[in-house]
C-alpha cells in the first residue's frame, strides 16, 4: 500500500514507496494538559512489523504522543485529546473504543523497568490469566516459557522462576517487562526510552531483541539516542514543540534530512 502523508498545518511528505501495511494512522492529533497544549496536530503512519523511532528534544511531546496510542493519557485527569488515531478502522480516541481492550492490543514498555512485586513466573502469567488467554497449568507454563524465550530471558531465569522479579538486574528486568507485554499477544508494542536506564551491554541486548520482535509485532520506540534510532528503526519521526517536523525512513532521515531543524538536531547542534 502506498501512502502519502499530507496535512495542511505541517506538511510532512513521505517519499518512500512501500509495500507495508498500515497498523495505525494518526491524523491531526492535538492534546492539552489542562490549558497547555502539548501536541499541535500530529500526522503519522505506523507500519506493521516495522520499528518506528520517535526522536526530538526533551519536552517536545514524544512520550505524550506515545501514550496516546494506547490511551495511557486517560489516567491523567486534566488531559484532553482531539483528532484521529485509526486502528482497524476505528478511532481509538473515541469513547466507543474500550481503552482496556486497546491496551491489550497496544502494549507498552516503560523507561524505568517496573516489574511487579511478584515472582518472575507470576509477572508473566498474571495478565494472560486475567485475559483468559491460557488456563492454569501446563498451558500457562508454556506461555511463560515462550514469552521469556521471545524476550531472550529464558536461559537466564529458567531455574529461578519463583524468585521475585525485582531481584533481577536492570536489563533483565526490562526484558522481563517486554516478556510480560509479549505474553498478552498484542499487535503493537510501545517503548518509551526502554534502554535509557540501562548499561550499554543490556542496551545492545534489547536492541537485538527489538529486531527479532518486529517479525511478530509493530514497535514504536522513543529514544534520545540518535545512534539507537539509526541502528534499530525502519522509520524515524522527528518531533519538535509538539509537532512532527519530519518523518521518513531512517536511512533517508539520517543521510539527507529535508528540514534544516532536523539536520541541526541529528548533528547535535541542539536538543
Amino acid at each position, binding site marked *: 500500500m502506498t501512502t502519502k502523508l499530507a496535512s495542511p498545518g505541517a506538511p510532512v511528505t513521505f517519499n518512500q514507496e512501500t509495500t507495508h501495511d498500515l497498523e495505525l494512522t494518526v491524523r491531526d492529533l492535538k492534546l492539552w494538559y489542562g490549558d497547555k497544549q502539548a501536541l499541535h496536530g500530529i500526522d503519522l503512519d505506523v507500519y506493521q512489523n516495522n520499528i518506528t523511532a520517535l526522536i526530538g528534544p526533551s519536552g517536545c511531546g514524544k512520550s505524550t504522543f506515545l501514550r496516546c496510542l494506547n490511551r495511557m493519557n486517560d489516567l491523567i485527569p486534566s488531559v484532553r485529546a482531539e483528532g484521529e488515531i485509526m486502528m482497524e478502522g*476505528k478511532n481509538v480516541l473515541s469513547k466507543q473504543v474500550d481503552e*482496556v481492550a486497546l491496551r491489550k492490543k497496544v502494549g507498552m514498555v516503560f523507561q524505568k523497568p517496573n516489574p511487579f512485586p511478584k515472582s518472575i513466573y507470576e509477572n508473566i502469567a498474571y495478565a494472560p490469566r486475567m485475559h*483468559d488467554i491460557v488456563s492454569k497449568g501446563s498451558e500457562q507454563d508454556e506461555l511463560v516459557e515462550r514469552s521469556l524465550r521471545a524476550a531472550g530471558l529464558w536461559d537466564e531465569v529458567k531455574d529461578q522462576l519463583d524468585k521475585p522479579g525485582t531481584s533481577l538486574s536492570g536489563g533483565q528486568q526490562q526484558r522481563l517487562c517486554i516478556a510480560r507485554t509479549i505474553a498478552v499477544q498484542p499487535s503493537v508494542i510501545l517503548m518509551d526510552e526502554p534502554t535509557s536506564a540501562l548499561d550499554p551491554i543490556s542496551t545492545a541486548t534489547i536492541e537485538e531483541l527489538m529486531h527479532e520482535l518486529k517479525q511478530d509485532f509493530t514497535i514504536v520506540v522513543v529514544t534520545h539516542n540518535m545512534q539507537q534510532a539509526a541502528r534499530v528503526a525502519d522509520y524515524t519521526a522527528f518531533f519538535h514543540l509538539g509537532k512532527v517536523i519530519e518523518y521518513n525512513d531512517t536511512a533517508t532521515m539520517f543521510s539527507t534530512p529535508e528540514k534544516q531543524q532536523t539536520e541541526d538536531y541529528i548533528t547535535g547542534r541542539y536538543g
Partner: protein
Amino acid sequence: MAQSLDDISRQLKKRHRKSARMKWLSMSALIAAGIFLLFFLADMLIKGMPAFQQAYIQVEVDYNERAAELPLAAVEADYRELVSRGYLRLIPGRMAEDDSLLGTTQTEWVLADDAVDQYLKGGKARLKDKQVAVIDRMVEEGRAELRFNTGFFTNGDSKLPEMAGLASAAIGSVLVLIVTLAFAFPVGVMTAVYLEEFAPDNRFTRFLEININNLAAIPSILFGLLGLAIFINFFGAPRSSALAGGLTLGLMTLPIIIITSRAALRAVPDSIRQAAYGVGATRWQTVRDHVLPLSMPGILTGSIIGLAQALGETAPLIIIGMIAYIPDAPGSFTQAATVLPAQIFTWAGMPESAYVERTAAGILVLLSVLITLNATAVYLRKKFEHRW
C-alpha cells in the same frame, strides 16, 4: 495472531462489570462511614437537645414559720412532688437571709422536678394519674413551661437530675488541660528540638525515638496505672486532683506533641539555619531566633490536636479517681476534680431518663468544643502553611 479490538471488547464486558462492582463496593464503605457519622450525630442531637430546656412551674410559695424548718410546707400538697427538691432546700436559707419574706405568700416560677420535666418533653415519667392531671391543668393555665436550661451550664453535678450541670466538670477540664499543657508543651517541644536540631545519630537517639513511638502506642488505660502508681502512690499527689490527672494526660499527649513538632521543625529549610550560622549565631540562638518562630504554627497546631485528644480522654482518669461524685468546682490543682468526659461517663451510668438526655447534651457540648479546637488547628495550619 492477535485478536481484533472488537473481540477483546466483547470478552471484556464481564470484567468491566466486575470492575464497576468493585468500585461501588469500595465507595459504599466510605458512604457507610458517612452514614454512620450522620446517624450518630442525629441520634445524639435527638437525645441531647431536650436537655437544653428545663421545665419550670408557677406555684404559690407560702413563707410560713413551718417552712423555715420543713421546706415542703411552703408549697401546697398538690404541687409538693412537682417542685424540685433542689428548690425546696433553698427556702430556709432564703428566709433566713430576707426577714421580710416571713408570713408572705409569693407566686413564683420554680424549677420543676425531673419527672415533670420529662412529662412535658413527652417522655415517660414516674407520675401518678392525679399528678398528671395537675400538670395538664397547669399547662392549660400557662403555669408550666419549658425554658432554656441555664442551670445546665452553671451548676455542678447533682443527685437531682434537674439540678445537674456541667460547670464544675468544665472547670475541672480546664484545670487538667492547663497542667497537661504546662507539662507536655515545653517537654514535647524541647524533646523535638533536641531530636531535630541537636541530637547526634547515636544509640541514645535511636533508643529515644523507639521510646517515643512506643509511648504513642501504649493503651491509654495503662497511663492511668502509671498515674496511680507513680504520681499518686509514689509522689503523693492527691487522688482525683487536676494535678495528677493533668500530668497523666500530659504523658499521653507528649508523643503527639513531639511527633508534630518534629515535623514542623523539619519543614524549616536548612538554608535558614545556614544563614544564621553564617552570621555567627550559636546553635541555640539559631533555634531560638529563627527555627522555632518559623515552626511555631506547626507546633501549635500539633499541640491543639494533642489537647483535643486529652480533653476527650477518660479511661486513665477513671483509674486515678476522677469519676467520684464531685458537685463543686475545684478551686485549685490539688482539689478533687472531675472532667467533662468523666461527667458524661457518670451520668451515662444513671438510670433516670433525665440523665440520659443530659449525657447526650454533655456529649454535644464536648463535641462542639473538640470541633472548635480541631477547626482552630486546621485554620492555623492553613493560614501559616509555608511552601518553601
